[in-house]
């Protein structure tokens, strides 16, 4: 397993089977495994930007 690299709540590392693993450290959940590191980084970027979850239609004046 390679050294973990972290960005906020997310970490990536290479496991014993040579997959790049993306983990959400808030619940220790593995979000995905990727062959290329770049794909793993892209996944982290998508989660950080998190467009749909951030949508808010309710607002007070």
């Amino acid at each position: 397993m390679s050294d973990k690299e972290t960005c906020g709540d997310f970490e990536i590392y290479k496991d014993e089977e040579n997959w790049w693993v993306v983990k959400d450290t808030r619940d220790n959940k593995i979000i995905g495994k990727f062959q290329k590191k770049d794909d793993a980084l892209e996944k982290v970027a998508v989660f950080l930007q998190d467009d749909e979850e951030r949508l808010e239609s309710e607002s007070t004046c």
Partner: protein
Amino acid sequence: MLIDMIKSSDDMYLYEINDQFFILDPYSQMFWFVKDLEDDSLLSNIDQLKKYNFFKQTKELVIDIKELKEDIKHIVINPTFECNLDCWYCYSRDYHHIDFERISLIDIQRTISYFADYKNKLNSTTPLAVSMFFTSEITLDFSLFKEVERYVNQIKKEYNFDFYLFPASTNLMSLSDEFVDFINEYGYVNVSLDLENKEQIETVLKNISRFDATVVKHCIIPLNSKMINLFSTYSTYMKSFNYVSMRPVRVTPNSKIPWTEKSVSDFKLELVKLIEKLLSLNEEELLDFLYKLGSSDYLARFIDRIISRKRYYKRCLAGKNEIAISPDMNFYPCSGLIGIEKYKIGSMSEGLFSNNITEFKKSKDIFTLECKECPIRYYCGGPCEDWKSKLNIKKIEEINHIECLVNHVYFKNAIFLVSKLCANKRVIISNYAEEKGIENRLSYPLNFEDFVLFFS
């Protein structure tokens, strides 16, 4: 050179606040500190992040938002314009002296049933919130509120959605035992307090003690551009209330204390002083202060939105999910727009005017207005039509730059406070987010170089 490049881009914004530089990505609402603007690697770092879709709009999302179906979630019934105060900023002040006939209980019942049936036709399952007395003082006609409460309790079992009946904020100038008993059981009271009115201040501080200690008390202070010593003002009322909110008044240029470019600029200095004071408090004192900011406080509004990175695409629910009913039974998007013919969107006798509602929605659409290029559009959600009308801005596509100035002043000061806390006292941000029930989406490295390193 680099500063000019960033400033000229629509996709990223550079802020300088108290000698600290920030880069803001308006789409992801992420921001980072930048230590050295002359650093040659800054440009390549920005390009590196662009490869991962930072500083880019997700166009598909905009289309989805526009296709969302609308539903009526909140109606505000305003039976009268009667009030025992004459506050200089009140949006129904011009009507206080006109002898409107009060809506009868039967008409109020018909109105509630009309909108409940409307929701039924939409197969809506969201609750119907009914508020009363936004244009008058609730305590002057509280027996009517109780009658309406009885009616709502009687009909709610006929519908597949819940009903909620909310009492409006009161000025606490006259209190009946019946109102006090109701609030003690209801458990929450909103009090609107004019700091220009010494008599009201004295009366409110006396009358607020008539409610049980268990009642959650929220003081709403209409904020004007001449207010000074904000920390001291907040602190004074936080002693008697559980929550205090300060929210800018929306007034005409001819009002007693108008918002102008100059007065916003003066007010900015007061807000800077407040932030400096907050940063000088210890952890316990600061959290205590932040927890006591109320639900309609403008500083809390921006702090919460910066921490949660929630993407607001609606300024408010007016005309979309919310309808105000005037004493003459006409419908308007907001109680502040009552009586202005061009904003009328229906009546009990004619129903809802779909064309007028569509036109009104255009006036708030941040995807087509000038807002679409504003860096803080998703923190703000778009213009307030009530404020726009006070400034007599008639064109739909024209926005209210005074409101924009106020919002930018609040945003900059809020992001400065949050960033300082993230850098030095992150635990305050996480505790605050937990207490307020908002998600903390600022757990990434706020130092731009550290953030880019992960993606390199």
